Every structure is written in C-alpha cells, then in structure tokens.
C-alpha cells in the first residue's frame, strides 16, 4: 500500500511537472474553452438564440453547462495523449520495467486529468459568474457538477488511454479523436436543447452519454434542486455503467499492449 502510494504520487508529480514546463500549452488549454466557447459563442449567438426554446434567461447561462461538459469531453478524450507519446518514445517501457503495479501509471493519469479538469470547470464557472451566471444550487450544486464531470471524465480518459495503447501511430490517434469529439458535441444538448433538434438527431443524442451529463449539469446551474436531483441521479447511474464499460475495454487494451 505504501509502495503503491509512492509510485502513484511520483508518477502524478511527473504529469504536474510536465504541465508546468509547458506554459503555453497550459495557458491555451485553460483559456480555450472559456474564451472561444463561452465568451465568443455565448455572446455571438445571444440574439440568434430563442429564449423560449432555451428556457434560460440568456444564451450564456444556457451554454455554461455545455461548455463545462465539453471541457470534460476534450480533456478526457485527450487524456491518453501523453501515454501515447510515452509509448512511442520508449518511456512507458522504462516505467514498465520497474517493479511497479501495472495500474499505477494509469491511475496517476486518471488522477491528474481529473484534477486538471475539475480546476478548469471551476475557472469556467468563475468566468460565467462574471457574465452574471449564478448556479441555482450553490456550492453543493457545484460539487455535484464536479462529481458528475469526473464520472464522465473517467470513462472518456479510459477510452483515450485504450486508444493510445491500441493505435499504430499518433496520426491515427488524432484522427479518431477529431472524428469523435465534434459529433459528440453537436449530437448532444451542449449547444441547443434536444427539443430544438430534428427528430432523428434527438434519437441519436439520446444515445450520447454526454447528453445525460449536460441534462444533469444544466438544471444545477439554471433551475434548482427539484428539477436537478432526479436528472443528477439518472446521470450518475448512466455514468457508472458508462465507466464500467470503458474501464473494462481499456484494461483489455492495456493488457494486450503490455503483455
């Protein structure tokens, strides 16, 4: 147990160190969602968006939940990238030739990605606050947003790591990544509510786990506990199933790659 903690601590510290040395990349990952999506799109579509359809006082407050979950999505899907590079340059082999638990490398990555994601979600909610978005459920609601976000992020990071261990080249990895992330965003309630979509898109969006996460986060921000609680409960159940499937798949990919 003590040995495991020593391993996971050291490996997690490595991710933190790397991030702190890549100042530009850190800045952009932080700034991108809030600048591009929240401020830019939020204001751009302010007048095009129909308040009746959105069920929100303004588009920014509607979009806030979407941007929060999109951030979780992007961080999660990119969560395996560093392991991919480790695999390609042989660092992973070096780690695997030491007497550590095989799972420590993966756990450290989960820990790191979830910590960074949570931090980013808080920053986004902070920026939304500046634009007058006040979460209707207060601090406890924010804690629940983080919880649901982390649950979603774990599954996504698992998918990303499974891909990192399975792909032949990092070109493949980024193609699949690009292919996955945009449809997941547009086929969800991130940008428009489900009932504003064509019927067939609504059906597809129902099968997108992201929709369920957004539908839990949005009432936590917009409406309040009575509306939010059942949706949060449903999202948690769906996320547990989602995570179980993703973790099972990724552990198989990991075992196949690592022997």
């Amino acid at each position, binding site marked *: 147990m003590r040995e495991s903690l*020593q391993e996971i601590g050291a490996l997690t*510290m490595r991710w933190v160190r790397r991030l702190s*040395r890549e100042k530009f990349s850190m800045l952009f990952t932080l700034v991108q969602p809030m600048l591009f999506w929240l401020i830019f799109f939020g204001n751009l579509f302010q007048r095009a968006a129909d308040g009746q359809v959105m069920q929100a006082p303004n588009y920014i407050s509607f979009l806030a939940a979407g941007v929060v979950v999109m951030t979780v999505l992007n961080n999660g899907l990119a969560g395996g990238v560093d392991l991919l590079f480790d695999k390609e340059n*042989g660092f992973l*082999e*070096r780690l*695997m*030739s*030491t007497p550590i638990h095989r799972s420590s490398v993966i756990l450290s990555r989960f820990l790191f990605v979830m910590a960074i994601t949570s931090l980013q979600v808080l920053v986004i909610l902070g920026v939304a606050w500046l634009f007058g978005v006040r979460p209707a459920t207060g601090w406890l609601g924010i804690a629940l947003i983080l919880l649901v976000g982390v649950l979603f992020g774990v599954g996504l990071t698992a998918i990303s790591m499974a891909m990192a261990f399975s792909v032949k080249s990092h070109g493949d990895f980024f193609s699949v990544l690009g292919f996955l992330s945009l449809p997941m965003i547009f086929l969800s309630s991130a940008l428009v509510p489900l009932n504003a979509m064509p019927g067939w898109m609504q059906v597809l969006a129902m099968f997108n786990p992201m929709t369920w996460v957004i539908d839990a986060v949005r009432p936590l921000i917009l409406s309040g506990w009575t509306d939010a609680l059942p949706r949060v409960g449903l999202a948690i159940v769906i996320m547990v199933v989602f995570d179980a499937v993703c973790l099972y798949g990724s552990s198989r990919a990991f075992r196949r790659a690592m022997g």
Partner: protein
Amino acid sequence: MARSPAIEVSALTKVFDGVTAVDHLSFHVHAGEVFGLLGPNGAGKSTTLRILITLVRPTSGSATVAGADVLREPEKVRSRIGYVPQERAIDRFLTGREHLLLLADLYHLPKVEARRRIAELLALVDLEHRADAPAKTYSGGMKRKLDIACGLLPNPSVLFMDEPTLGLDVQSRLRIWDYIRRLRDRGITIVMTTNYLDEADQLCDRLAIIDAGRIKALGSPSELKAGLGGDTLSLSVVPAHEDSLLKLIAALKDLSSVRAVNAKPRGCDVRVESSEKALPSVLETANRLGCQLDSIEYRRPRLDDVFIAYTGHRIREEFPAADQE
C-alpha cells in the same frame, strides 16, 4: 557467485501474428560478464531482451533472470534488473535529476538512500553540472548517459542495454564503452544487444550471433574467430571487369583450396585453409577468366567474417564498409 549463471534461457520462442521472431533460443549468461546479442535489425535480439526484462511474454520456453523466473516471478525480476532502452527514453520536460527521483520512487527507495544514489550516479556519468537542466537541452550523448544512470539506479545485479551506442558520435561511443567496462569491473552482469561488430568484438566477453530468431554461433569473440580457422582473401576487381565477377565467384567455389566465397560490391571475400596454398590457384583462375584484379589482400578472420560464415550474409548489406575498422 564467480561463474554461476545470471541468466538461463531455455527453448525461448516468441511468435507474433504467425511470424516467429525468436525461435527456440537457449543460452546462459555467467554472472559478471558482458554478454552480447549480435545480429542485424529484425533478427530477434530486442524481442529476446524484452522477454528477459518481462515486457514481452514468450510464446513458449522459459527464462530465469537473477534467480527469478520471468513468467512466474516478473516482479522479482524487475526489482533485480536495470534497463537501458534503445530509444532515448527521456522525458524532455524533466531534468536529469527528476528522472532519477521518479525512478527512485518507482523502485521504492527511501528518500535518503535515493538522494545518496542519485548523487553517486550523476558523478559516475559526469552529468552533475547539467543535472538540473531539462533533458530537452541535452545532447545525444548526455541523454544516453542519463539513460545509463537510470538503468543503474536500482543497483541491479543484471543490467540490460538495448543498442547502447546506436546513433552516437565516435567520442560518445568510446565513453559509453568505457562506462560499460567500468560497470563490469564492479561486478555487474551486462546483457546488451548490438548490430555493431566492433562493439561486440571490443566489449563482449561472450556473444551470441543471432539471425532470423536463431542462435547461429556462441562464444567469446576470439573463440569465434579462431573457430573459423584459415584466412580470408579479399579480392577486388577493376571496375571494367565487374561483369566477369559472377563467373569468377562460381569458379572459385569449385577450387579445392577454397572453403567459401562471399560476394561484396566490386569483389569477393574468399575463405581459404591457408592463403599461401590457395593464392596461386585463385590468381590462376582469375587470369583464366580474364578477370583483372584491382587488389588482393589477405587477413586473419575478423568478427564480420565470423558473422558471414554463420549467417551467410553481411550484418548490414547497405553499408558494406561500415564495420571494417
């Protein structure tokens, strides 16, 4: 411990998607020696090495490293060995010291012990002055030195090195060779793969020549060379007569004093029992075929002759002169 085996390998086989990379290898490595796996790229050296360090599971066969079975006790094996991978397995954003600190935690060293060993290793590989600079500022040779320090951090009884001087300039190569000799003097068993004949010749106490997944020959470099016996006549043909070279090779193969002939660009190497006896008939044959010789020299067998004799080809076809020194 003097001559007890550090590694025992028996009928080790690895099949990847129907392709046999390692084919029933059996050998052992004595404690305290430098053991080389010599072969061209794709011969199965790296796969063998990775089985021994428990990164790849063999399809069949068994291996014991530092007293532990690679299949049944991989954790024990990992805690007793050090590994210097072929790629510069360096995190460019971490400093040299941070690499070693990370590994110290992965080997579960207590803080004080870790600090002592890291200071000692940085001194050993002359990296103290750059220990706190990010690795992306290191030269190829410095990265290699850091790699070696990382491999030595667990204080291993067996150190595995995959192509330790691949892609290094001459000076760095010589320095790495020097470290390897010093490590052997400390009693560390070293297993290395290489496709450099001179490296195998100069550094290894014993070596296994591997080709197409099989061991073709095994012994000390001098044993292998002596075992070949005889001499090598190296002929080269004037450029205008190159088209008659194939005929010459065919004719030489029929001579009773000739053991084997291997073509090379613009000439051939002829292995003979004794150059004094064979030389007249070789010259006579060339004259008879009207094949004008540019030069002819004879030499005692070298490791590349050994390699050709056992595998039937050069270690690297594209650079026939790369290992002549």
